[in-house]
Structures are given as structure tokens and as C-alpha cells.
């Protein structure tokens, strides 16, 4: 009896709710649904900035955050949405993956916004290239992470009586003193992507940006299977002597906390590591030091998050999407987002006085290297080659790093195969 009485009531409530939603819809100019995995504290705050900006423009923001390391889960969700013909308006897609989505014919065209806002002038050519598919802008960069950083604990270094190294040779040279002081010279997590991060940094330090580009971006088999690569691989393997036994499978943030806690002296990691130092209440320049990875001062390996735009279903959605693309590159969002996330803005013309010294250094180097040609995409972070090739390179690199019996010559040969053998 009770349920009979309740039923009409519930129905009318539902009717009211639906009516209300319909009535309020025309007020909104359009709706954007953004798939991202900025779900940790700082990141979520950063994403909220964009939401507020969009809502200030009168658009509705539908958050589509999928948590899960490195966005693997989010990508799976995105693929199933795209396959069922219902992709979100924008998704956090980066690097060569933008090209793969572009080839599927799913991405929209942002050329109008790009022209109106002069993206050509704002973005370095290397960066703009990644945002374009078939000559058209299809994505917009959100931030720039620098990958080739060395993080060090100055207190530990000075107790051992050594300086922050500026070359790989110096790094090997101070290892004994650090060991003698009971400290692990280099904190590392033995996961394939971390091995690859160290590997690409060593390649950059040993062989320079031109070789890096030929080998790890263009996948030139001659460069991959060259004497230079063998030398770089030999040095890479030698990096192992700086690390501890327990590194296997360790997460990067655990490695960072070893530097914070003083069990380890240094870590080679991208600038997201700064988040850990900040969370521990440390000040850059005093409590911890950030310098370009030894031997790579004149280079900048970037890892850029971007939002790729899917084809809009109607005009309203198109307007909302264009506004989203414009807002993402506007100073307000770039500053607020990157201050919260610890990265640097993707456009080079902003006032950096609110940022910390690491970010200021990063920005200066970003500008300098984009002019000098030292700006290169990070292979380890999916900016240089497609996921399948990247995976094949990871396999070789991590296997070589962990297998005491594999010669650098054999690894170089397998690298060349990895670059060329995929369907």
C-alpha cells in the first residue's frame, strides 16, 4: 500500500527534476566534457581552475576524471567511449598518441582559435608540431614538464664533502664519498619507465641533442645501432653502480622520499618530483637542489600534457570547445594550473615571478633551448614515439639494465630492431 502511495510522488519529483534540467539548459551556451586524470590533490585543484573559467564564460563543465596511474584506465575508458561513437569533447591525450587519434578521424579542428590567438607565435615549433595533425591544430598544450632534472639533498652532499655534479663523470667520481658516508648516491625505482628516463638522460648527456633526435625520435636504425649508442648504453649500465639493491619495482615517489629523508643523495626524475619536496615542506635552493641532469645543461627534454579536442556534435558544442581551447592557453589558466601542478606554462611570454626557482630555471631553459634547438621530446614519457615502439624500446632498455649478461652491442642491435619491426 505504502509503495503504491509513494509511486506517483516519486514520479512527479522525477518530472520536476527533468523539467528543471530542461528549463535551465538554454541558459548554458554549451557543454564540455573533459576526460582527464588530474585527480591527486594539487592536480584536482588545478583542473578546477579551468572549470571555473569555463563556467564564468557561461558553459557547463562536465567533469570526467578517471583515476589511475599514468592514465591507463582513463585511456581504456576513452577508447570504449570513442568506439561507441560517444567521445567526450576533450581528453587528456599527449604526444604521438594525438596523431593516432587524428588518423582515426575523430579529432576536431582548432585552426580558427589558433589563428585568432596566434598560437604560432606563442608555442615553440617543436611543441606546435605535436599539437597538429595533418597541418591542423587538434590539441592544446596545458603545461610543460622538464624530464632531465637532477634532484639532490645538499645537506647530504656537504656532509660527504662533495659538490652537486655537473657531468656524469663527476657523478661517478663522488659516488665513493657518498657510499663512505653511508648514503646511496642515486635513488632510483626499477620500473621500466624509470629505467628509460635514466637511459634517455644518459643518451642526451653522452651524445647530445642531434644524436638523441636521430636515435630516439626519428628511430634511425644506424643511430640506434651505432658506436655512440653502445657507449651510451655502457654508461647507462654503469649508473647501476650508483643505486641500491632494493630499487626493483620501487615507485618514483618512494625514491624521491629517500632523497628527502637523506638515505639517498640524488635522483634523476622529471619536475613532478618537486611535488614531493613541496609536500614535505621543503624550499627549493635551500632544502633541496634542482639542476639540469649532469651533462644536459643545454638540452630540455619535455613532457607536455595536452587536451585533444574531439569533433563537436553541434554548433553550441563547437563554441564551448573553442572557448575551452582558448582558455587553456590564456595566461590566467596557465599560471594558476602550473602553479598548482608544479610544471611550467606552455607559452613562453608569461611573468614567472610567482613561481619557485626551479620553475623559473625551467622556463628560462625552455625558452633558451627552443631557440638553440636543444628542445627535445621525452621518449620515456611518450612524447617522441608511438606507444608500441616506446614499449619495444622499454623492453630492451629495462632488460639490458637488469640483465648482467647482456652486452651493450647486443642491446644496441635490439634497439634498432625495436624501432623498425612493428606492424
Amino acid at each position: 500500500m505504502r509503495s503504491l502511495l509513494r509511486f506517483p510522488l516519486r514520479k512527479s519529483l522525477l518530472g520536476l527534476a527533468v523539467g528543471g534540467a530542461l528549463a535551465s539548459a538554454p541558459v548554458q551556451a554549451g557543454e564540455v566534457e573533459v576526460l582527464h586524470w588530474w585527480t591527486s590533490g594539487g592536480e584536482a585543484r588545478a583542473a578546477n581552475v579551468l572549470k571555473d573559467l569555463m563556467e564564468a564564460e557561461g558553459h557547463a563543465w562536465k567533469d570526467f576524471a578517471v583515476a589511475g596511474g599514468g592514465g591507463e584506465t582513463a585511456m581504456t575508458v576513452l577508447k570504449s567511449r570513442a568506439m561507441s561513437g560517444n567521445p567526450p569533447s576533450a581528453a587528456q591525450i599527449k604526444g604521438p598518441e594525438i596523431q593516432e587519434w587524428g588518423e582515426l578521424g575523430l579529432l576536431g579542428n582548432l585552426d580558427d582559435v589558433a589563428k585568432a590567438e596566434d598560437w604560432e607565435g606563442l608555442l615553440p615549433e617543436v611543441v606546435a608540431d605535436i599539437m597538429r595533425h595533418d597541418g591542423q591544430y587538434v590539441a592544446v598544450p596545458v603545461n610543460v614538464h622538464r624530464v632531465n632534472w637532477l634532484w639532490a639533498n645538499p645537506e647530504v652532499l656537504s656532509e660527504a664533502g662533495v659538490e652537486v655534479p655537473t657531468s656524469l663523470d663527476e657523478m661517478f667520481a663522488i659516488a665513493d664519498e657518498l657510499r663512505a658516508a653511508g648514503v646511496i648516491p642515486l635513488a632510483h625505482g626499477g620500473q621500466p619507465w624509470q629505467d628509460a628516463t635514466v637511459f634517455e638522460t644518459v643518451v642526451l648527456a653522452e651524445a647530445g641533442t642531434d644524436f638523441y633526435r636521430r636515435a630516439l625520435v626519428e628511430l634511425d636504425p644506424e643511430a640506434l645501432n651505432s658506436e655512440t649508442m653502445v657507449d651510451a648504453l655502457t654508461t647507462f649500465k654503469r649508473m647501476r653502480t650508483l643505486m641500491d639493491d632494493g630499487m626493483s619495482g620501487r615507485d618514483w615517489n618512494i625514491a624521491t622520499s629517500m632523497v628527502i629523508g637523506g638515505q639517498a643523495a640524488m635522483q634523476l626524475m622529471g619536475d613532478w618530483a618537486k611535488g614531493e619536496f613541496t609536500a614535505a615542506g621543503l624550499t627549493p635552493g635551500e632544502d633541496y637542489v634542482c639542476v639540469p641532469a649532469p651533462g644536459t645543461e643545454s638540452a630540455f627534454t619535455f613532457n607536455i600534457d595536452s587536451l585533444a579536442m574531439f569533433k563537436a556534435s553541434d554548433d553550441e558544442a563547437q563554441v564551448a570547445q573553442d572557448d575551452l581551447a582558448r582558455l587553456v592557453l590564456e595566461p590566467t589558466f596557465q599560471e594558476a594550473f602550473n602553479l598548482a601542478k608544479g610544471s611550467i606554462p606552455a607559452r613562453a611570454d608569461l611573468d614567472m615571478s610567482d613561481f619557485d626557482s626551479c620553475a623559473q630555471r625551467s622556463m628560462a631553459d625552455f625558452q633558451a633551448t627552443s631557440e638553440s634547438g636543444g628542445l627535445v621530446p621525452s621518449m620515456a614519457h611518450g612524447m617522441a614515439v608511438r606507444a608500441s615502439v616506446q614499449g619495444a624500446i622499454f623492453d630492451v632498455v629495462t632488460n639490458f639494465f637488469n640483465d648482467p649478461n647482456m652486452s651493450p652491442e647486443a642491446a644496441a642491435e635490439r634497439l634498432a630492431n625495436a624501432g623498425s619491426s612493428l606492424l
Partner: protein
Amino acid sequence: MSTSLSPERAARVPVKRSALAFLTDWIPRLVLAPSVAVSLFFVYGFMIWTFVLSLTNSRMLPSYDFVGFAQYAQLMANDRWWVAATNLVVFGGLFVGICLVLGALLAILLDQRIRQEGSLRTVYLYPMALSFIVTGVVWKWLLNPSLGLQAMVRGWGFEDFTFDWLVDPDMAVYTLVIAAVWQASGFVMALFLAGLRGIDDSIIKAAQLDGASLPRIYARVVMPCLRPVVFSAVMILSHIAIKSFDLVVALTGGGPGYASDLPATFMYTHAFTRAQIGLGSASAMLMLGGVLAILIPYLYSELRSRRHG
């Protein structure tokens, strides 16, 4: 599905009776039909789809550009696949074998009508209640050379003690065996214990009267009676072994390098994170083939011998 009957049948039996008979005939089928349809579609349908995908050059999303068996050829040429396949043989064999022996042994010991049997049984069975992710993380800490066992024993003063399987590419797969055996042997023990309790006492008494020793009774009388238990234990354990994924992810992450990769993690990595759905599907089909190659003969021999025996 109409309720009308064929004319002959309606003529032969009274209407009321035949409606009942009809219902008794059809209700089980009707009730089962949805689940059969669902499993046909979601299990066998997807198996076929996976096979179709394995013949295409699908990368990030499924495509239907057929390339024949090229993905299989590429898989055969892939070092990492062979590492994963070999690991499965090593891991699966050791895991099933050790669990069976250990489980049977524990069950026999517990079966000696000892005191506190209930609480002991719980102690042994408890690991099964944990998720493999938890087991993996705990053993990861225990086996980590600079945190766990090795550090502890060295801390006691045995400076040369080394137990670094977790970070040794040649030994990492055995750490998976350790953790998985720890988790599942209690469960096998419970299965065997139930089996042992089900054996008729009089057979054992008869054997004792004939002067058989205790080990001999177990080997010749009890164990053969437990054949169905062994059968179900092998079935359950081998499917745990083949689908092992969470344990690898939590314990070794497939590392060091990819030394402890299993086909399940290989498949996941390639299909979902490396945009090689074609290759991933091919590896999934080979996994299926491997399972069938082992299970079908085993099922066949077990089911046939039981019918005859």
C-alpha cells in the same frame, strides 16, 4: 513460445495434465536460457572476436584490416613473449605441484585428531581470504633486500646473508611461486581435509587389520580415494596460475626488466597500454590454446576414467 500444444499431443493427454507436463518440460529451459545466451555471447562471442582481432593490424582501436597470421609471427619473434610463456610453465608447474604436496601434507597432519584443529585450520586457510594484491605487496616488502628478510638477518649480524631473488632477474619468477603457494596451499589443505573426512573408516581399519603401515595406507588406500579432490584442486590451481595477473603486478611488476612477466600481464600491457591490440589478441589466443592443450586431455582422461571406474 506459445502455450498451444501440437494436435496429436493434445488429443493423447488431458489438457490440464499436458499443460503441467509442458511447464515441467520448459521451465528449466526458460530459466536457463538467459544465462546460456549471455555466456554464449560474452564468453564464446568474445573469444571469436578476439580471434578475429588477432588476424588484423588493430593498434589503438580494433580495425578490420586483415593481415593473416602476421601478429602471431611477430609474437613468435618477440623475446618478451617467450620469457612470459616460459615463466608460466615454471610458475604454473611449481605452484600447482608444491600446493598439492604441501596441502595434502598439512591435511594429513591435521587429520590426526589433534587438539585445537579448528583454530589451526583457520590459521592455514586464512591467507586465501586475502586478495592477491595484498599478498603481493606484503611479500614485496618481505623480500625486498634493503627492507625485508635480507636486511633483518644482516641486522642480526650475519653480514653475508643474501636473499635477493626479488631483484635477481633469474630468480624473480620463484618469488611469485613463494607468494602464490603461501596464499593457496591452505585452501588445498581444506579441500584435502574434507576429502579425507569423507573416506570410510572401515576401509582404513581393514587395511590396518591386514598389517599395512600408516604411510602405506595413505599411499595405497587414502590417496587413490582422493582422486576427485586432486582433480578439483588441479583444476582450481591451474586456472589461478594461468590468470595470475594481480600477484605479478603487486609483487614484481613483471620485473626486474620483464623477467617475471606472465602471459596475462604481457597481454594486458600490449593490448591496453601499448596500443597493440592485434598482438595482444594473438597472445590471448595462444594462452587459450595452451589452456585447452593441457585441460582437454586431462578432463577427458579424468571424466572417462571416472565413468569406467
